[in-house]
């Protein structure tokens, strides 16, 4: 059965409430799903939405549990990784969305004037993936079509941001409540497993 994870750092909502007891709910369960809300949720971290973020990656959940807390985790106050086992048919009112597919479904047609594609250099995407170290790639300096008819700054759309951030976090969104019976485990984590980090292999 497919396994999903949710990391909860110290001091965050799902750290202070045990989802094994009452399951998961979104912050705005009554809100209606829309592609705009979905993109705001992922690209702008606006969690005033009907979505519950899950990940298919234990490693991503680990990072959220250990490094996305409001205080450093310790052995006595660890971060948590929830393990959620979901399979069809899902309980009434719950469905899952793959944000990549949702963005693709809503993307403009190639002949539309609006588009989601950037108009920067080929390394533009690297700047988007890692603005911390590659932010220069998002800068305006680039060749322009003659006679200077291009846009002054490269086009960065929320669609492209949503795609990249979804892929970063191996993210799947749940809409509706996830009952407690689907929450199989809650693991405690408080330090980065450095020894594993040194032993990483290229997965290609």
């Amino acid at each position, binding site marked *: 059965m497919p396994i999903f994870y949710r990391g909860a750092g110290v*001091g965050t909502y799902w750290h202070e409430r045990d989802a094994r007891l009452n399951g998961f709910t979104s912050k705005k369960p009554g809100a209606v799903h829309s592609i705009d809300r979905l993109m705001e949720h992922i690209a702008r971290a606006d969690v005033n939405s009907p979505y519950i973020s899950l990940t298919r990656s234990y490693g991503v959940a680990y*990072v959220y549990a250990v*490094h996305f807390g*409001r205080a450093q985790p310790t052995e006595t106050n660890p971060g948590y990784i929830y393990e959620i086992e979901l399979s069809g048919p899902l309980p009434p009112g719950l469905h899952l969305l793959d944000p990549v597919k949702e963005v693709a479904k809503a993307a403009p047609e190639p002949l539309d004037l609006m588009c989601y594609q950037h108009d920067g250099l080929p390394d533009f995407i690297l700047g988007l993936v890692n603005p911390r170290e590659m932010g220069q790639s998002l800068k305006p300096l680039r060749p322009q079509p003659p006679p200077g008819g291009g846009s002054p700054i490269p086009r960065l759309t929320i669609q492209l941001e949503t795609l990249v951030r979804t892929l970063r976090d191996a993210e799947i969104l749940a809409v509706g409540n996830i009952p407690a019976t689907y929450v199989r485990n809650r693991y405690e984590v408080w330090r980065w497993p450095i020894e594993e980090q040194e032993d990483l292999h290229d997965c290609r």
Partner: protein
Amino acid sequence: MIAVDLKDRVKGGASIEFLRVEVPEGHRRIPSALIRYSLNGVEQPYGLRLDLDKQVVLDRFEDDEEKQEAVERAVPEILRVLRSNLYAR
């Protein structure tokens, strides 16, 4: 954990003073930072989580617009301080 001082480098407001920003030791692979701040001179036990890729703070002052605005105003400056201290090396 690496701490970068924000005092006198990033403007606060609405009783908030930004003290420092903490990033994990393996910060090049981890897109998170924790902003430590004080309210009325008292350091708060819980910091504000900053997603360094999305460049947004994940925690909000839901019922205090003034504080929320002070945090949002400070984010670009905090990112600039971080970049010049960590990523430009």
